[in-house]
């Protein structure tokens, strides 16, 4: 019993860490642009398929190490260009936040059907990053889980460092906190919007590579991820990075316990109940700002 609970906690921590990586990216884009990216789940699948392509048909030397090396710049460019080509022109119109949601919803469906057309409707699986287990008494940890946890947390630490210690990172925060003030000090908003979108694409794409090893790559699976990422950001407080971090671990843990005790079918119901109760009592979420 005790060891089962320890297993559940570990599973919650691992899922929570990857969710945190993804949700922070989503909340960042919302915080900066005030528009919601509904294609976020499809970018997660882009990560899975990208890794699959490089590892299976291409057979890239260096395995996952090379995959990350190639993926980070590629995801950045994809995110940057999509923002510049599809989203940036919308901002010239009134009510553009709503138009961005419409467009990203369309983009999400386009990508999902695109995956089906290119990769077929059946799920694909990614090879594990690393084999083997670590035994601590009766608790057994998969090396793979440890690596996923370390990479997710490491990714977030890198991201936090960049946000607080680089000029562009500070500019991103400035635009999120006061767009008018950012304009006054000469921060080019268009560049910051595109860069933020690109960074969030990296975060969710990496999340896709990490988590798809434990689950599968499902061409229609983006909705589930979108729901999760959205629940975390709304629960944590839209636009709040620390809120998303806490929310990701709380929901990761809740998911693990509900899945273990009641069955996986109740997981989404439990997380959505938590969300609805939270938003009813506190509409701005855990740490959102009024």
């Amino acid at each position, binding site marked *: 019993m005790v060891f089962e609970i320890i297993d559940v906690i570990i599973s919650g921590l691992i899922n929570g860490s990857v969710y945190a990586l993804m949700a922070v990216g989503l909340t960042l884009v919302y915080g900066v642009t005030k528009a919601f990216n509904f294609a976020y789940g499809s970018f997660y699948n882009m990560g899975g398929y990208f890794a699959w392509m490089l590892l299976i048909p291409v057979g890239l030397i260096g395995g996952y190490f090379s995959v990350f090396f190639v993926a980070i710049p590629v995801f950045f460019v994809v995110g940057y260009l999509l923002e510049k080509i599809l989203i940036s022109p919308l901002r010239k119109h009134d009510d553009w936040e709503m138009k961005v949601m419409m467009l990203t919803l369309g983009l999400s469906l386009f990508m999902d059907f695109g995956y089906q057309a290119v990769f077929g409707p059946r799920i694909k699986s990614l090879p594990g990053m690393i084999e083997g287990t670590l035994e601590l008494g009766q608790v057994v940890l998969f090396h793979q889980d440890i690596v996923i946890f370390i990479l997710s947390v490491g990714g977030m630490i890198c991201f936090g460092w960049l946000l607080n210690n680089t000029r562009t990172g500070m500019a991103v925060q400035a635009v999120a906190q006061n767009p008018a003030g950012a304009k006054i*000090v000469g921060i080019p908003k268009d560049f910051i919007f595109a860069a933020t979108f690109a960074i969030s694409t990296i975060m969710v794409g990496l999340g896709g590579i990490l988590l798809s090893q434990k689950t599968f790559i499902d061409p229609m699976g983006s909705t589930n991820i979108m729901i999760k990422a959205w629940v975390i950001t709304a629960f944590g407080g839209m636009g709040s990075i620390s809120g998303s971090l806490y929310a990701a671990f709380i929901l990761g843990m809740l998911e693990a316990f509900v899945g273990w005790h009641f069955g996986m079918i109740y997981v989404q119901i439990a997380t959505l109940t938590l969300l609805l109760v939270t938003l009813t009592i506190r509409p701005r979420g855990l740490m959102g700002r009024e």
Partner: protein
Amino acid sequence: MLKVNKLNAYYGESHILKDVSVAVDQGQVVLMMGPNGHGKSTLLKSICGLVEKVGGEISYSGEDIIGSAADKIVNLGITYIAENRELFPYMTVKENLKLGAYSKNARANEKKNMEWVASLFPKLIERQKQLACTMSGGEAKMLAIARGLMSDADLLCIDEPALGLQPSYRLDVLEIIKEISKQGKTVFLVEQNIPQLTEMADKIYIMEEGSISFEGSKDDALNNEDLKEIFLGL
């Protein structure tokens, strides 16, 4: 240095500035006065690229800047210091100041300007780790001015720096503007709460209903009975 010719500016459908022409020469302190809500701030914002719908001519050091993006204008050496401060609320004093030096030119002189700002605003530097949102109105105003100075601009467009401030802060503002001017910087200022400023202004404009109704030296203004009563409060 700065020439504005027949400038028109709009917010949505409302026509705010109507054929406004002003000229500011290098090293001058130019004062813009007039009733509230008649377009003084809009003029400063239009110069700094912060108003979307503008028509007419604005040239700075011979370069046409009307309609240019705000970040390009900051890079040319013009900065706007907002009446409502527009600070970054969840950043520290120091971080706000560093972001003031975001533009390329400012970056090169960030250290020098930080020392200058520290000498002008010793109280701010004592509180460099404090979040901007926890500061009092007067302190926040000082921070907004200090952040503007970090931009390394040659032309500072300062919007009502003393509005809503206690008298002691108003005198601080006056001293700071004197010091900025002493450094050879050009100051274009909207302000009418500091009578001493009228004394030091090289030129005074008065704007009413989106048009310039008076332009002249401080002596012209002081000799004009109507102005004395209505605007200068003397």
